């Protein structure tokens, strides 16, 4: 048996950052092999250099970055010493890349069929008729039903999952020996993600190619990886077979990351005694009217069919659903950013949904929200302090006493007091999310809504914020609505869970009921789609030395 040679072999690679950055190298002394028929996952948090590694291999580094040492061997040649034009010829034919955002990776002006055929036209001299046959075969290979129709479609007529399949089909067109996928499923819903991941597993078998898969999600790693490379601040801290890294991580940073993966709490939730209801929602629904356009008649979209639920005081209620499930519409109705068509939202003795706009303001302090995007939810032009005291001042409190509470809250969310004098750009995503939590708490609400509040954060930061939310809930006696698409996060922080799909509640119950014994087909599908569900996350990896 001949020795199997790696498809890609990176030795001692360093990529320098421009002067004045927070560290000298984006990637430092990196060693890495990708074998044929193997999926290598590069895992790390944002800023770990995982994307830079894949860009360097593809020869797509931004001009300000430069590989300073090492070699990238591909097909017996060093890519770093290869002339630009030859490298360009390799891209697309010998090596291909799949990006994160399927929405922008395709040109909206051409049909997807044309775009795939274009690759054949650019790299080969295959006659037109055969280009079409090959394109259709590719579309079928990436499991797109009705390949003929898809071939004629424009990108905007397809869903995110379908588009990502097409991007993959384009990458596969010329049978590359190396496939680099940079977070290819991050922008997708969990059920779509599961299908795409399955496809990668099949491709590895069918194509005999090496796949380098960049991700931040340990669930995904557990699902597909053969080998795992863990990166931190540009360095590989640990690499090895997937089972080894996932179950017996050696390096403290890997342990930290795995420990931060949200999971179901081990202790079974004891059934709680009945407590007063903090929020009662009944029959809240919302239908959007889509105006007539030149090509389509007017239509109505029922974003939220009348829903019913109650939030007990001191409870954390999770609302889980994929995009388009109506959870965002529900939240916007609850805080009256939009007016529901029907229904009641009882907070204490007030029907928040029926209150006229004019009198609404005085009740707003009871229900507060922390949004998803840490970069969009703070006004970049105002100091943190000004934004924090805004709420109480609106409700008639003096600036001085509000400032005093702001300082206290900054301490509670574990930030420096002098953060109050700074502007939002000076903070990281996790810090901003803490500030947003503090801002919501400034008006002493009874109910806190966390709308995907940790979805945009790195896993270790996510853990800190989740812990903070749980602490604050206890400390302030809050009731919390936790909106998320991530089942693991929901399982970790919630007492009870509501599952939404297509604007309806399809299942509700305690975490154990929903996760242990899902009744509705959709919930079962959702749970099955959860990446890495076969992986039993090791407990206490940080403390067990």
């Amino acid at each position, binding site marked *: 048996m001949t020795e199997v040679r790696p498809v890609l072999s990176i030795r001692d690679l360093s990529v320098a950052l421009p002067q004045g950055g927070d560290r000298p190298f984006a990637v430092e002394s990196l060693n890495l092999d990708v074998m044929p028929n193997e999926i290598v996952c590069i895992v790390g948090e944002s800023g770990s250099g995982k994307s830079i590694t894949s860009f360097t291999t593809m020869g797509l580094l931004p001009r300000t970055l430069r590989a300073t040492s090492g070699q990238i061997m591909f097909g017996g040649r060093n890519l770093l010493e290869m002339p630009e034009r030859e490298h360009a010829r390799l891209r697309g034919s010998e090596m291909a890349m799949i990006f994160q955002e399927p929405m922008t990776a395709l040109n909206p002006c051409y049909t997807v069929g044309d775009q795939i055929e274009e690759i054949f036209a650019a790299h080969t001299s295959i006659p037109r008729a055969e280009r079409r046959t090959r394109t259709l075969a590719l579309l079928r290979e990436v499991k797109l039903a009705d390949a003929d129709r898809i071939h004629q479609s424009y990108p905007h007529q397809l869903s995110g999952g379908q588009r990502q399949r097409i991007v993959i089909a384009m990458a596969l067109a010329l049978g590359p020996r190396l496939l680099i996928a940079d977070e290819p499923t991050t922008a997708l819903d969990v059920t779509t993600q599961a299908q795409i991941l399955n496809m990668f597993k099949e491709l590895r078998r069918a194509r005999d190619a090496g796949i380098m898969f960049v991700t931040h999600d340990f669930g995904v790693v557990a699902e597909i990886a053969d080998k795992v490379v863990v990166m931190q601040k540009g360095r590989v801290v640990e690499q090895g077979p997937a089972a080894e890294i996932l179950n017996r991580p050696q390096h403290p940073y890997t342990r930290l990351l795995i420990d931060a993966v949200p999971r179901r709490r081990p202790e079974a939730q004891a059934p709680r005694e009945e407590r007063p209801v903090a929020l009662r929602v009944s029959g809240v629904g919302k239908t959007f009217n889509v105006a007539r356009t030149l090509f389509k008649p007017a239509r109505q979209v029922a974003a939220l069919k009348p829903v019913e639920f109650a939030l007990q005081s001191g409870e954390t209620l999770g609302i889980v659903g994929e995009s388009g499930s109506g959870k965002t519409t529900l939240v916007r109705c609850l805080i009256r950013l939009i007016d529901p068509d029907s229904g009641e939202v009882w907070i204490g003795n007030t029907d928040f949904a029926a209150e006229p706009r004019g009198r609404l303001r005085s009740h707003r302090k009871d229900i507060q929200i922390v949004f998803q995007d840490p970069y969009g939810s703070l006004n970049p032009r105002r100091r943190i302090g000004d934004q924090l005291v805004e709420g109480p001042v609106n409700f008639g409190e003096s600036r001085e006493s509000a400032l005093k509470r702001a300082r206290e809250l900054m301490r509670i969310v574990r930030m420096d007091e002098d953060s109050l004098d700074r502007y939002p750009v000076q903070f*990281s995503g996790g810090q901003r999310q803490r500030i947003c939590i503090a801002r919501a708490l400034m008006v002493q609400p009874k109910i806190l809504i966390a709308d995907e509040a940790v979805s945009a954060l790195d896993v270790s930061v996510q853990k800190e914020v989740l812990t903070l939310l749980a602490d604050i809930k206890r400390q302030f006696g809050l009731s919390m609505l936790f909106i998320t698409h991530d089942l693991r996060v929901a399982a970790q922080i919630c007492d009870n869970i509501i599952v939404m799909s297509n604007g309806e509640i399809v299942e509700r119950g305690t975490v154990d009921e929903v996760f242990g014994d899902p009744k509705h087909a959709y919930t079962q599908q959702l749970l099955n789609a959860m990446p890495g569900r076969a992986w039993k996350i090791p407990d206490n990896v940080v403390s067990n030395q």
Partner: protein
Amino acid sequence: MSAQTVAAVPPRLTPRQQLWRRAWRHKGLVFGATVLAVIVLLAVFAPLVAPHDPYRQNLLARMVPPVFLGGTWDHPLGTDALGRDYLSRLLYGARISLMIGFVTAMISAVIGSVLGILGGYFGGKVDAVVTFLISVRLAMPVVLVALAVVALLGGSLIVMMTVLGLLLWDRFAVVLRTATRQVRSMEYVAAAEVLGASLPRILFKDILPNVMSQLIVIATLEMAHAILLEASLSFLGLGVRPPTPSWGLMISEGKEMLLFQPWLIAIPGVALFLVVISINMFGDGVRDITAPEGRN
């Protein structure tokens, strides 16, 4: 953890100090601001700086060439066809140009941003009205309307500024409407609403500061635009009335002597060019340094 704190606070400066530092490093801004400051100072102190009375005619010293073309230091930039000192007229003319530019930009900025922000914030019917007004305004040819009004009401400075102010707000409205729509969809606006902020508070604290950089750029563009328009109208004889010294009027009066005394046109032309380019560079610079993305 330590890496983070080091990165976040290289020498601790207040935001204001940082703004100054960034301003000094921005070459275009420094150049534009310097030239503009010199012109503004000269215009403000024209009575002290000007060597002669800009209105005094001296038919014995007509069309004296400037110093660099063989004239004397008595009239550094020469004299015009009526023997009036050209430097003095240029300095007094700067007052007219800057005033027209500034006041016109202010009037149109107020009209345009009120319309734009309201349309962008509320959408729906309000937006339909605003969009309609913008279309109406865009359908009117600025120069023709200005000519007609000035011809009807006479060409005083006040009439000029009002007419131009009422005509040049379209860009403000278009740009601010789009910018406001973007800011409106940001989560911090939703957060302010949820925190019980009143409508004026949201508009002034959350919307306006975040569309300010666009506003400044448009304001400088329109200021330059207004100065040029005044010059054109005066050139056509329907702007500021003689003998008031206005750069456009000076060019207009010099046009008959174009072949033999080209400096009569070149000097106010260069002045016009310098003012317009310095205003534009100043505006671009201000936008660059105040953009929050670059603030550290």
